Each structure stands twice: as C-alpha cells, then as structure tokens.
C-alpha cells in the first residue's frame, strides 16, 4: 500500500546524498572564507543558554543549541549551514541574504516532504493553523535521532507520546474541534496499546496522515478494512465478502466497518467485558445499534423485528439474563462473514440452517430449519405458527382475565360480607 511507506526509504536516501552535501558544504565554506563546516563558530554564540531573540510578534524564542544533543543526533556530522542556509538577521549579515529561508528538510528528505505535503498537517499549516505539526514537531530539531533508536521521538515506543503532546492536550483538542476525544486515554487501555508494537502511525500513517474525510486516508470509512487488514488479513478477507463489507466498500455510510463494532482507539480484546464485541454485548448493543434502529431499517428495507423477536425468544430471554451458553446474533449469523440468507454460503441459508442449529442442538432434525425464525406472535401474522401462537395468547389472556377476575371478584365479595358481619 502506497501510504504504508514509512520513513525508512527516506533515510536511505539521506545516507546516499549526505556525502554530497558535506562536500558541497565544504566548498561553500571555503568560498565565503568562513569555516562553516566547522560548527564551532555557530556554537560559540548558540551555546549560551540565555541566548534569545524576539520574533515579529514579540514572542521570545530561545536560540540555545545543545552541542552534545546535536553531536549525537543523526545529523551530528552536518554543518549548521547545511540546514540553516540563509539567516536574515543583523548579526548574521555577513552570510545573510534578503530572503529569510526557514530550515527546509526537503532539501534532503524529498520523499518525506512529498508525503507530508499530501497530509493533513501540512494542509493545516497552509491554512495558517499555528500548532499544526511541522517536521521538527515530531522529529525534534537539533537532536533528531533515527527512528530505530529507542530514544527517538519517532521510535515506535515514543510515537504515542509525540502525538499526544498535541492530540491529548485538552486545550488543543477543543480549539481545533477534534471532538473532545483524547485518544491517549482510550488507546492506553486498548488491546493494541498494550502490545507496545502498534502505535498511532500504524493506522493513521506517518508523513502522509490524512483527514478522516479524505478518501485517500487510511482511516477513511471504506479504507478501514484494508488498514486493519495489514495486521488482520484473514479477517479483512472474510469481511470484504460479507454483506456488510460489500456495502461498506460501496460507500454506504450506514454499513458497518471494523470500527463500527470494535471501536477505534479503545479496541479491546473480545474477552474483555468492556469490549463492544464481548459476547455479553453482541446482542444487546453491537448488532442492535443498527438492526434495532428505525432510521437504518427503514432505509435498507430490513426490519427491527429480528431483534425484538430474539429478545422474546428463549435464546434472547436467557441471554439477557446472562446465559453465556445461549445463542446470540453471531451464533447463527456468523461474525465477520455475515451473509444474507439468500446466499447459499450463508450460515442461515435454508440448506445450511439445520447444520447451524445442530452446532448447539446435536441431532437437530430438518424441522429446526422450517418455519420462520424471527417469528412475531400475532393473530394477523404471516405464518401459521405466528398465528397459532397468537391465538393461544389471545385465548389465554381472555381465560386469565376471566378466571382470575372471577376469582378475585368472588373473594372480594366473600371478604366484604365477612368483614361486614364482623362489624356487629
């Protein structure tokens, strides 16, 4: 996948072009007569911790550069001027030109810059949002370390911290309308967060991370199965063939993708009772969130009756009481590979139903598969069974009202008479 390319390629390019720039730096240094290749000249001033300047808005900017940090960084062998090509400033008048050119990482890291320019952070910068991440926000400035180094800001164990500096900052999240959600809290507790191997960039991409509404984004609705499929290929394969997967791929916003059922930052293991796909929740919240929703059922010509009738069935009643052995939605319909009953491969296709029931009811006869499954009891029902049960209900309710009403009436008169008799 194109967006999955991480920085490693960019680094190799860096190593390729680095010597060229070193030589170039030496030549340039020689031409101007100042030893630019030797950073001692710069550090002579910039090692002063109190060195500051004021920017156009009057904000104080520290100009201190820690020599040790720089020397140990991946760029430790570069000269200051390799990155700080032009500095317009009275003090640097000698080397300065009319243009104030900011440090441009793209000089070397072309590929990364290209990806970055397509990403959301660069677009936000272009819109003038100050706190959108620049290269140095994530990679650091003078102390950049290769991402394989455990101390690096972009090492897999630190990426979360790096992103969280802004994205779990309540003020930042509020100011930028990111919906109050702090991914940090959720992700820490998630099954992915606990592994320590999966981090923000695995799903969001790194340089090219895009907005949720960008169709090229890894987290765009219809791309989510592919994003998850990088690590869970078998499940994605099942899902894309399912009734949900097909609709999701076609852009149906109501059709679930992975995150609809599993959650996103806070994905938990199935066995975790807090997981939305915990077997105790499947038939209470997970499936009914759509299949008991009038809005969706009307639109897709499905009904909410399966959920209602399930709740009234033995399976549903026992399940709601906490029976873990009782069948829930997924027991019969499948999980990622749910197919409509018209599909011969479906677990609930009429030819497979006997086998599906037989999983729990060994020796299930073909009568198990006959008749309406999610029957709704009503004397006006479509099916004979529905009507029969409907009539049983009507007759019994009349019987109960008549008998119990009669008995109550009789006893009441009896009590009344005896009470009145006792008055004397």
């Amino acid at each position, binding site marked *: 996948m194109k967006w999955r390319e991480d920085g490693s390629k960019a680094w190799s390019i860096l190593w390729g072009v680095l010597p060229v720039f070193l030589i170039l730096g030496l030549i340039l240094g020689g031409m101007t007569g100042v030893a630019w290749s030797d950073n001692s000249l710069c550090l002579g001033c910039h090692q002063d911790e109190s060195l500051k300047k004021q920017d156009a808005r009057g904000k104080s900017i520290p100009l201190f550069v820690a020599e040790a940090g720089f020397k140990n960084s991946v760029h430790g062998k570069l000269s200051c001027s390799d990155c700080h090509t032009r500095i317009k400033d009275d003090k640097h008048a000698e080397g300065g030109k009319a243009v104030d050119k900011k440090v441009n990482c793209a000089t070397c890291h072309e590929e990364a810059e290209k990806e970055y320019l397509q990403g959301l952070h660069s677009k936000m910068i272009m819109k003038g949002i100050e706190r959108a991440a620049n290269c140095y926000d994530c990679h650091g400035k003078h102390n950049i370390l290769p991402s394989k180094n455990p101390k690096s800001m972009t090492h897999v164990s630190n990426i979360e911290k790096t992103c969280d500096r802004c994205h779990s900052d309540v003020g930042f999240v509020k100011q930028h309308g990111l919906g109050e959600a702090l991914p940090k809290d959720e992700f820490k507790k998630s099954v992915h967060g606990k592994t320590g191997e999966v981090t923000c960039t695995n799903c969001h991409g790194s340089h090219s991370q895009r907005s949720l509404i960008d169709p090229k984004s890894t987290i765009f609705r219809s791309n989510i199965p592919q994003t998850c499929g990088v690590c869970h290929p078998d499940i994605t394969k099942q899902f894309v063939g399912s009734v949900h997967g097909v609709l999701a791929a076609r852009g149906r916003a109501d059709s679930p993708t992975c995150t609809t059922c599993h959650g996103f930052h806070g994905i938990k293991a199935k066995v975790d009772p807090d997981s939305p796909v915990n077997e105790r929740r499947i038939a209470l919240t997970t499936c009914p969130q759509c299949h008991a929703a009038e809005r969706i059922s009307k639109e897709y010509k499905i009904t909410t009756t399966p959920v209602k009738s399930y709740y009234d069935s033995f399976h549903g009643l026992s399940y*709601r009481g906490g*029976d873990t052995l009782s069948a829930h939605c997924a027991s019969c319909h499948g999980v990622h590979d749910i197919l409509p009953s018209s599909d011969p491969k479906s677990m609930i296709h009429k030819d497979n139903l006997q086998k599906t029931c037989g999983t729990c*009811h060994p020796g299930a006869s073909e*009568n198990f598969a006959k*008749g309406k499954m999610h029957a709704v009891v009503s004397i006006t029902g479509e099916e004979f069974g529905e009507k029969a049960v409907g009539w049983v209900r009507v007759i*019994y309710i009349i019987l109960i009202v008549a008998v119990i009403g009669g008995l109550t009436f009789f006893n009441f008169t009896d009590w009344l*008479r005896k009470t009145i008799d006792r008055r004397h």
Partner: protein
Amino acid sequence: MTKKYLRMTLNERMQHINLAVNFTLLVITGFALSYSTAFWVSPITDAPLGMTLRGFLHRLCGVATVFLGGYHILYCIFTERGRGIAKDMIPGLKDAKDLWETLKNNLFINRPAKLLKMPRFNFREKLEYLGLIWGTIVMTVTGFILWFKTEWLQFFPMWTWDVARAIHFYEAVLATLTIIVWHFYSVIFNPDTYPMSWAWITGNLTEHEMEEEHGLELEKIKAQSKGELKEFSEAVTAGGGRVYTIRRGKLEEEGEKGASIRRLYGIVRSFNETIKNWKGT
C-alpha cells in the same frame, strides 16, 4: 382444649410442603427467564452461571413435581384414605349450588344469609384441586416438549414447539395468579382464618373452621362418633381410623414375588407407615 379435627395426615402435609416448595421454586426460576431483566431476577443473573443453574433447577423442580404427582396418584389409588379423598373430590351439583348460594350470601341477595353446610371438600377446594391437576398435566406436557426440543422436532413442526412455549408461559401465569388469589385467600386472607390456617402444619382444623367450611362433614363425623366425642388424635382419620386396610395379609404372603403394581403399593404403604409412625426426632 378445643376439639381438633384431622384435616391432613403427616403424609399429606409432606406432599403439600413438597408441592409448595417445588411450585414456588418453579415460579421463581420460570419467571426469572421470562422477565430476565427484572430487578428481582438480579440475584440469579448476577451469579456466575446463574441462568444455566436457573434452568437446571427449573427442570429439577419440574421432575420433582411430576414424581410428586405420580406419588399422589398412587396414594389416591392404594390407600383407603387416598381413595376417600379422591371420592370426596368429585364435583357435583351441590358444589355449584354452594357456590351460587355463597355468592348470593356475599352479595346480600340472600337475606338473612343462608347457612350452608358444605362437605369434606367444599367447592373452593374442589375447584382448586381440579385446577391443580389440570395445571400439572398441562405444565408437564408442555414442559417436556420444551425440554426435549430436539426429540420433539423429529416428529412435529417448529410451530408446535412455539405453541407449547406460549401455553407453558400463560398457564404458569394463570396457575401463579390462582394460587395467590384463590389459595392464599382461602388459607390466609379469609377473615375466618386470618392470619393463617394452621392445617398445613398441625394437620388439624378447629371446630369453628369445620362449621364454617365443612358443616356437612362435621355432622357426619359427629354422627359417626355417636355422640361420644373424643379427641381426634392424628392417627385416627375422619373416616373411622382404618387407614391402610387393603389385603394386608395377602400382600405379605406374596411378598416380593407379587405383581409389580403390588410391590409399588407396598413401597407406598411402607412409606406411609414410616411417616405415620414418625414421632419427631
């Protein structure tokens, strides 16, 4: 000391307690499924495997009730007292008249109220007893259909199972409400018996209770004792003290070789004897 009239032998009281416990457990464990989200079910649903154990207990109590019913049938066939009960339970025209007159008394249509003399089992008790038999049969049949679903569906279509399920539920509602409305009125809330009729524990009714509810029976007993009223001890039945009389000697002769139904009778009888002779610990 007030005179006591034996109403239930120890055996019958045991049957009654057995039924009461099983019935209560069946009601609780049954409606715990139908209303599994109700607040009072939470002790069951919160317990680990609560719902599974609930189902197990429900079936266990169901089986126990069926066995109790079977025992009761044997009791009614093979003991004289049982046969007497069965005979006296047969409803007749008098019961309908009693009911009608009671209603008229209650509504003050009969002024002054007519004094009703009712037999050993009055219409209230007959109604309840016959209702209990009917309910037990219905619940047993539908219960076994629900339990042995796979076997049932070998021969019958799915809708029959659904019907059985509906009947099992509504019959349960009917039975429970009947017990609460009818039985509990008779033995608890009836102003004549309130706070409770003690017959289910002591086995006896007082003379006043006999007069109120079983006037005819009282007359009969008094006539039988020919004016010499004695204290009715527990072992002496209202019928005259002969409880277990059928071919006692003959059965002992035949011993184990006898027909299986006789042997069964022997078991029932010896159980009865044991209970009868039981003097407490």
